[in-house]
């Protein structure tokens, strides 16, 4: 580990980290917003729901590098546009999270729904007041998986020319120099685990009953 290199390239490392986080986390936020209505709609379409879930699984089996390079052709964006990476990761994350939303909604006990109906909850009020909060632990579990794997996956973006922590790997490889590779690896892992912890803390704060139950 060459500490002088790290001290001299502090700014560059910071920029790479910032770019990495933007590329990895915007998709998580976008997917979170998208997956709740999508998951709800899939949940409601009882008979075809499993077929749609299988399609989500198939989306997840498309290699990320393939998706990164095909998207510019589909979107009409330039190959170097960071939007390609963001859209590709959003597609993955939405496929993963929508699944969690369906699983979570399916886990809500029938007697709880009946109780809510009996008290006089309407469909909308029941969804936001009862079904969704009870599905949230499963959705949070999916969110944690998605966030951690997005952060690990994002460094591939450098292969299509979009800078991220992958820039450090690329630089290290081209110069036959290990320090940037170590820095990129450690930063990526630490940031992924920190993001996981942040989501866990948010979950503890917003869903206090989960802790009580477990």
């Amino acid at each position, binding site marked *: 580990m060459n500490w002088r290199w790290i001290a001299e390239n502090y700014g560059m490392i910071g920029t790479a980290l910032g770019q990495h986080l933007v590329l990895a986390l915007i998709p998580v936020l976008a997917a979170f917003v998208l997956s709740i209505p999508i998951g709800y709609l899939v949940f409601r379409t009882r008979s075809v729901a499993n077929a749609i879930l299988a399609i989500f699984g198939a989306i997840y089996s498309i*290699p*990320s590098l393939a998706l990164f390079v*095909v998207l510019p052709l589909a979107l009409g964006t330039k190959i170097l546009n960071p939007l390609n990476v963001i859209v590709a990761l959003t597609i993955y994350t939405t496929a993963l999270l929508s699944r969690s939303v369906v699983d979570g909604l399916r886990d809500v006990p029938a007697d709880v729904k009946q109780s809510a109906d009996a008290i006089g909850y309407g469909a909308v009020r029941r969804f936001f007041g009862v079904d969704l909060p009870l599905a949230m632990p499963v959705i949070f579990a999916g969110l944690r998986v998605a966030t951690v794997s997005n952060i690990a996956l994002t460094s591939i973006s450098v292969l299509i020319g979009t800078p991220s922590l992958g820039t450090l*790997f690329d630089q290290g490889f081209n110069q036959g120099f290990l320090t940037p590779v170590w820095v*990129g690896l450690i930063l990526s892992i630490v940031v992924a685990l920190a993001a996981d912890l942040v989501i866990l803390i948010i979950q503890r704060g917003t869903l206090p009953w989960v802790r009580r139950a477990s």
Partner: protein
Amino acid sequence: MNFFSYLLDPSHWSGSDGLGLHVAQHLLYSLIAVAIAALIGIPIGMLIGHTRRGNFLVIALANSFRAIPTFGLLILVVLLTDTSWIPVVCVLGVLALPPLLTSTATGILQADQQAVHAARAMGMSPGQVLGRVEMPLATPLVISGLRSATLQVIATATVGAYVPGFGGLGRPIMDGLRNGDYGQVLAGAILVAGLAILLDLVLSLIGRVTGRHLRFKPPRSAVVETTS
């Protein structure tokens, strides 16, 4: 669409730099990687499941593996060793290890305990219980672990083409990107996605066939015993 012209041109399929060879290389690398991971992961998973020890460690390990950027690990290993294909395949194997390990351990942990007790009562040795009862019951889950391991390896093997001299379907993607030939890029991308979906289909069929015999486990006796 002229984007598909590269993929559909027969002259791009054969030869020492043809798509046919890249598909074969991609499959070969992936199969070696999954085989190495299976040879290590499945026995350890069996041991953990059978002894019911160390499962917590396996779950923690599998979760932290998800945080490792494979691309970075690949470059680290290649820089530390050499640029032959062996370190790349080893990194792919590392990727396939956690799903195989966890699914095997979970499969055995979730095996019907009535059947395990019955096997013990019949005088089976621990090895026989594991081989004849726990493993067959765990097979569907082991296959599903094999499925996610294979998919991950097929997808990530493309990144291996970053290393010069490493073949497979990442090669046309990387070469095409470098030369601005997007028809070539698309050809690699479509083939690798197709290969992933095809292998997933094959493995899910195998999973369905191997899971079929589980219908013959005695479900009714279990119900009777729990009510007594």
